[in-house]
């Protein structure tokens, strides 16, 4: 019966309807609130605003009570008598932190139950800022790594492994521009300055059709537009790093700007103390301009530029090593409300990730750089014909240019120029359609399809090698000639069955592709890993994932719980052929060095979260397994993937001690990383000690665990004064756990007694680290 009604309602204009549409914004700053909720009491249905804060609902004429809500804001109630198409912008008031009472009585969301997406987490920026920090910086990626199903890459790493996928399988977007390396060295900081960020959404696994190009997750980060009413600033001064963000109107209500900067200065402080320490610093710059032309058109222009610089020189300056790398993105967007039901966004972006390595030692100098350039244009439509449907469709085109490794070497006076390596150029097209609709009161489906075409195009010189890695032939393809073409389609189907307001079951089946992947030599993700696109030798990666989840809320949605199960198969994964080191990229195409295999990943994720009250927080626990099988590696036997972690636990507690004093505590536990270690020693070449290694990744390092705490004190804001201050004191790794970073073998020779002993040593990098930060805003 419901189905028939649904079809009739959808297909006809059987009853007259009017459309209520507009933007949902922050009352104080004028910022749009993406994915805010608009709930209609009378029909017990709601919709959410899109990622630009635009909403649209079509209803029969009548009187309606509308409740508009968003996390961190007071719910707005509005009485409407709908008799014609009308455009209303809703302005929500942010909740003032001091008065906790308001929080308790605000709209309790059962979004986690009601949503058709299982693995979607909206990360409130305010929550990110309350977590313990290191070196004075709260961090988005560090917070995301605390969610179940997301495993952090290890000490000194901002990588995320989601459901057994590598760090390259996460689509990280900053204002729609792809970010290839979102981490700074040593993994304490991502490149995202939380003060400049408005919204962060993580989608694990069941990715809707409007996103594509990665197998495991999407991290969609939207920058603030800039306060449209008044000039505001936020900043912090810490022991090792400082940051400052300034935003405000260029023309009130019309044009706003935001600029943000951050830099570390650990090198400046520590260098005089520790002579042989490497120089390390990074900086991040963000900028944005937001221009509201009129109620139909808006323009945004945003940019990010950041760099990490690492340099090490030896005592007598005979050795110098420099390691600069960074990202640069520009994103230009145009929002256009075509009509009350149809919203369009056109985006043009440019992304660049580049790293260089320069090493000099006496008469030997080695320089290498590698970069990836993306030029993209996309057109995305949101069509809301009916309250039961949320339709998205659009298209995206990216032109990729990858310079996998360009190097030059100088020995004495002789120069070897290795720029003979051929760049990779590709066309990446996608067309998608997704509809999220309610079949019945209980069943909601998101069904979508993504049609893709990836082409490897010229100019390109293909080196054909024999088994000795000697070049026996080469083929040259001219500009724009199609060398390989991969058309395909990706269905994405998600279903939610609502048992009651507090409980739901969800299931999803998704097929995803990835056209550019990371070729990693190391067991650690280093910025020297290279991005490899699909070519005539390497096919696009494909994954099929089936997931199932049970969601249950308690105590009026104050406690959220969920259990999710997933099973994922991946094809066309790459690994370096055994024995290859990075100098194999000379006079060769890097993709000749890879071998192809498959992966399997399955697991269960448990989550309990308390959202309101003096004590809030969550526990996430994941039990999972991920393996790889490559015919040419490990003799074709299945082996644990680098990212295999049987157990992963995160506990976060935030407690309001008093109105001005807040504390938070984080505890993480993870099964140790795997490693390939020797099983035998042998002697060759006149008595040198060499090793025979065991099966790939067969050794498990000791588990990783650590606890951090943080205390923030907010100084009382003086009346009539604009400035607010707070002081934060944090400790990273409070019990100084020596987590293994890597293990190595140290041969200890005793010449007197003529003995050699092999001692296994474990190296840890970060122990107990306290930090103090002074934060301000005006």
């Amino acid at each position, binding site marked *: 019966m419901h189905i028939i009604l649904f079809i009739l309602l959808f297909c006809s204009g059987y009853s007259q309807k009017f459309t209520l549409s507009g933007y949902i914004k922050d009352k104080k700053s004028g910022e749009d609130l993406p994915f805010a909720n608009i709930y209609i009491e009378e029909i017990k249905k709601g919709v959410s605003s899109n990622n630009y804060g635009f909403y649209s609902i079509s209803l029969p004429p009548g009187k309606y009570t509308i409740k508009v809500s968003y996390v961190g804001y007071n719910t707005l109630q509005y009485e409407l008598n709908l008799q014609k198409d009308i455009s209303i912008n809703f302005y929500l008031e942010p909740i003032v932190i001091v008065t906790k009472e308001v929080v308790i009585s605000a709209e309790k969301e059962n979004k986690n139950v009601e949503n058709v997406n299982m693995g979607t987490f909206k990360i409130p920026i305010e929550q990110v800022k309350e977590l313990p920090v290191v070196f004075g910086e709260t961090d988005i990626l560090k917070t995301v790594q605390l969610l179940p199903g997301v495993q952090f890459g290890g000490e000194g790493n901002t990588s995320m492994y989601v459901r057994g996928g590598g760090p390259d399988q996460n689509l990280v977007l900053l204002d729609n521009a792809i970010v290839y390396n979102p981490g700074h060295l040593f993994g304490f900081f991502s490149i995202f300055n939380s003060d400049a960020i408005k919204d962060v959404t993580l989608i694990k696994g069941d990715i809707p059709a409007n996103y594509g190009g990665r197998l495991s997750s999407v991290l969609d980060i939207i920058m603030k537009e800039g306060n449209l009413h008044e000039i505001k600033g936020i900043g912090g001064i810490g022991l090792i790093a400082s940051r400052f963000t300034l935003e405000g109107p260029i023309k009130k209500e019309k044009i706003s700007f935001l600029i943000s900067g951050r830099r570390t200065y650990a090198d400046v402080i520590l260098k005089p103390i520790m002579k042989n320490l490497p120089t390390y610093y990074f900086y991040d710059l963000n900028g944005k301009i937001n221009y509201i032309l009129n109620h139909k058109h808006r323009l945004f222009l945003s940019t990010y530029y950041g760099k990490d610089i690492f340099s090490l020189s030896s005592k007598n300056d005979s*050795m110098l090593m420099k390691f600069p790398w960074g990202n640069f993105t520009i994103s230009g967007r145009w929002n256009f409300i075509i009509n009350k039901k149809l919203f369009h966004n056109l985006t043009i972006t440019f992304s660049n990730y580049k790293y260089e390595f320069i090493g000099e030692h006496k008469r030997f100098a080695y320089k290498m750089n590698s970069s990836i350039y993306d030029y993209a244009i996309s057109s995305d439509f949101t069509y809301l014909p009916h309250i039961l449907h949320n339709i998205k469709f659009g298209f995206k085109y990216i032109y990729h240019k990858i310079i996998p490794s360009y190097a030059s070497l100088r020995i004495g006076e002789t120069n070897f120029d290795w720029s003979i390596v051929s760049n990779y150029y590709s066309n990446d097209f996608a067309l998608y359609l997704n509809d999220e609709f309610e079949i019945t009161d209980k069943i909601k489906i998101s069904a979508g399809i993504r049609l893709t075409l990836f082409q490897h195009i010229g100019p390109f010189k293909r080196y054909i090698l024999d088994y000795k890695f*000697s070049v026996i032939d080469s083929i040259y393809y001219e500009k724009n000639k199609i060398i390989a073409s991969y058309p395909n389609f990706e269905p994405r189907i998600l279903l939610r069955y609502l048992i009651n307001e507090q409980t739901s079951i969800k299931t999803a089946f998704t097929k995803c592709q990835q056209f550019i992947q990371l070729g990693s*030599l*190391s067991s650690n993700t280093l910025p020297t890993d290279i991005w490899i696109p699909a070519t005539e030798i390497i096919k696009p990666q494909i994954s099929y994932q089936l997931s199932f989840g049970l969601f249950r809320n308690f105590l009026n949605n104050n406690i959220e719980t969920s259990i999710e199960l997933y099973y994922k198969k991946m094809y066309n994964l790459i690994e370096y052929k055994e*024995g290859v080191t990075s100098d194999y990229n000379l006079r060769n195409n890097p993709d000749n060095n890879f071998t192809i295999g498959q992966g399997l990943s399955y697991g269960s994720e448990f989550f309990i979260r308390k959202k309101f009250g003096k004590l809030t927080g969550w526990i996430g626990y994941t039990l999972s397994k991920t393996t790889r099988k490559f015919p040419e590696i490990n003799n074709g036997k299945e082996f644990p993937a680098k990212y295999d972690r049987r157990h992963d636990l995160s506990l976060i507690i935030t407690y309001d001690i008093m109105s001005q004093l807040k504390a938070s505590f984080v505890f993480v536990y993870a099964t140790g990383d795997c490693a390939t270690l020797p099983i035998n*020693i042998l002697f060759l070449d006149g*008595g040198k000690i060499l090793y025979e*290694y065991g099966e790939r990744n067969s050794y498990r390092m000791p588990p990783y665990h650590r606890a951090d705490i943080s205390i923030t004190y907010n100084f009382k804001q003086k009346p009539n004064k604009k400035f607010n201050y707070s002081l934060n004191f944090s400790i990273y790794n409070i019990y100084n756990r020596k987590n293994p970073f890597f293990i190595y073998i140290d041969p200890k020779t005793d010449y007197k007694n003529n003995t050699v002993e092999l001692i296994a040593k474990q190296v840890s990098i970060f122990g107990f680290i306290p930090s103090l930060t002074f934060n301000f805003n005006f």
Partner: protein
Amino acid sequence: MKKITFLLTLLFFLTNCEKVIDLKLPKGERKVVIEGFIESGKTAEVFVTYTSPYFSKFDQNMLFNLIEKNALVVISDGIDYDTLKLITDPYVFPFFKYKGSKIFGEEGKSYHLKVIINDTTYYAKTYIPNHVKIDSLKFIPSTSIDSIGFVKLYMKDPDEPGNYYRVFTKVIGKDSTYLHPYPSVFDDRLFNGKYVEYELYRGRNPLEDYKYDEFGRDSSGNFRWYFNIGETVVVKGCAIDYDHYSFWYSVEQQEITADNPFTTPVNLRSNIKGGAIGIWGGYACYYDTIKITKN
């Protein structure tokens, strides 16, 4: 890249904590290790030893127990056979080797090796290519002290691609055996058909390690890696086949990456069939001598 990984490892030693741990590794099965070679104009030499479990403590006794003295080692050039006899060699570890007497290596020929221990047979094949002449040798004094320095080798690589080399040096009166620098093997990918210069330093003899400190200096302050004025150095440049090159290349990759967390460990690329680890390689040698004088 080898230098880079070494330097990165160095970095981590500077800035962190280290502790000794107790690793419980699975024991690998004991394997036979065969290291054999045949040079142009000389008879074959083969060392046969065993692997040892990973965390053994090594002393003299233990090391001697790793030597196999009862293997049957036979080589053939397709026509004749030569059964190698066990002799001692006080200059090279493991001090016992099997040496041939009938077959002398010739360029352009292939040689087969068979090693039989108890009931197991190990087999390998190698080829001695044509030698490549060393054009000249030159002494390059060190920038800080001009009485010590390196030797530079000049040669012209033949035009066809696929030439592989290994180089050795021997200081007359000082070295009892040929030593090689690191890296000692290279191919002609970068300079096929062109003139090559390769810088040589005095290589490492593991039996001498005890004499030198961590900077390579002995008690008199002499550096182990440099050549000195007054010395006569014999340079042996050898042409080798691909499998021979691939093996020593993997040895050298392993040497530099063994403790490095940034690379996947390298297993040695043996050319021995039957389950043994090691190499049976041919060398086409060309010798040249330089007397280092002040000028």
